[in-house]
């Protein structure tokens, strides 16, 4: 594996427990500073693949940031967006201007919209300054303006040498240079 190559999967079998389709086979390579979009129909195993990657030994967890879907889950106890994002990384409000207005950080998690929750979680993830980012449909609840800001942040991090594997259903024209894997 060359120095710039971070991941190389050749027809890797990934089991899909509890599904009609028992497994999928994935071929994918990821280099430093690269964006890879994972596409496929509903139930194709995209989220399972991302979770499998997160739990695999291909990446050092210290240099890995993973954001699964989860913004739709309620937190029973009082918790503000700033705290929720703070569980992912310290000082997520550092990049609040680009993703979430400062006034929204004190909104209770359970009263925030899905988009606001997702933006708070994304702020937390981007603030981790990791070398590899795994994101599962990170823009699914974002409005157009927030999605554009998201891709700007991806480009900014790519320019700094970070790599992304993103499960993405959309069709934005603002996508950075990327490769695609179809499951």
């Amino acid at each position: 594996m060359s120095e710039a190559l971070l991941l190389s999967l050749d027809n890797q079998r990934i089991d899909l427990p509890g599904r009609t389709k028992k497994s999928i086979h994935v071929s994918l390579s990821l280099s430093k500073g690269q964006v890879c979009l994972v596409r496929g129909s509903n139930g194709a195993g995209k989220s399972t693949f991302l979770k499998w990657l997160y739990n695999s030994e291909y990446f050092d967890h210290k240099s890995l940031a993973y954001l699964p879907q989860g913004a739709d889950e309620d937190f029973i106890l009082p918790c503000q967006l700033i705290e929720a994002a703070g569980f992912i990384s310290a000082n997520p409000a550092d990049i609040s201007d680009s993703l979430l207005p400062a006034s929204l950080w004190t909104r209770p998690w359970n009263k925030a919209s899905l988009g606001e929750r997702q933006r708070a979680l994304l702020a937390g993830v981007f603030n981790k300054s990791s070398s590899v980012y795994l994101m599962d449909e990170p823009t699914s609840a974002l409005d157009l303006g927030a999605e554009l800001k998201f891709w700007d942040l991806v480009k900014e991090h790519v320019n700094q040498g970070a790599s992304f594997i993103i499960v993405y259903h959309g069709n934005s024209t603002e996508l950075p240079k990327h490769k695609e894997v179809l499951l």
Partner: protein
Amino acid sequence: MTWLEYVKEFWILIPIVVLIAPALFLAGSKALAQSKSIDIFILVQGTVIGHLFAQSIGLEGSADILSCYVFAALAWYLSDRILGLAGVYQSAARIALYAFLLVGVFVFERWVPGLERHVNSAFVGDLLYLSTTKALLLIFIGLCFLIFYSSNFHELYENIFYKNILKIQRTLPKASHVLNFLLLVSATHFLGLSFTLGFSVVLPLLLSLAMHSDTLKKYTTNGSLFCSVAGALSLLLSFRFPDQSTTPLVVLYSSTLAVAWVLRSRYAQS
């Protein structure tokens, strides 16, 4: 006895309530955040059965406490096994386990003559008859729990957030489980089921409604302080009514204060 004489006689109960009420509140809040409050019911019910089993075969003192720990651990183990079962609606299955344990209490009561008094004391507790040794043991467990909790607050809730919101598998530190177990079983055995459930189930829920817009940190800090102060004041107030059971009165007064806070916060919002 006058009110002041009661205070002088039972002063040791004040530090116990001041420490154990917030510890139970924090343990209950943690369970609530994980949607696992039913675990507390199961653990508490296992403790009661352990106590009744000990009484039915004439075990006293430390053997009685040991029996509570063994039965509570067994109940906890069963609940944990249910969590690992695939294709089972786990909440319903654990409620069924709780119902089974509840039935067990009444089976014991019918089985062994003269056990009604122990069933009653297990439910309402015997706060006024707590020995110094038991009181010191409770204070020690409460202190250990509070120190562990405050020094691991962020890590505990980070793990809960990852597990329950992001669905990323994280496990809480083993010490957290052990201290939780010791606190809940000891509180049930020494202070009664009503005190334990009152401060670990009722108060966390009521205070989460009262502080629904606050931060998690503020909720846990203010909630703990509330339970300490309201618990101690309720205890002092309960001495005014020596004919009534102390523990249920403490829970009732504290819950009433919490309900007043909820109403005040709702009124202020509207």
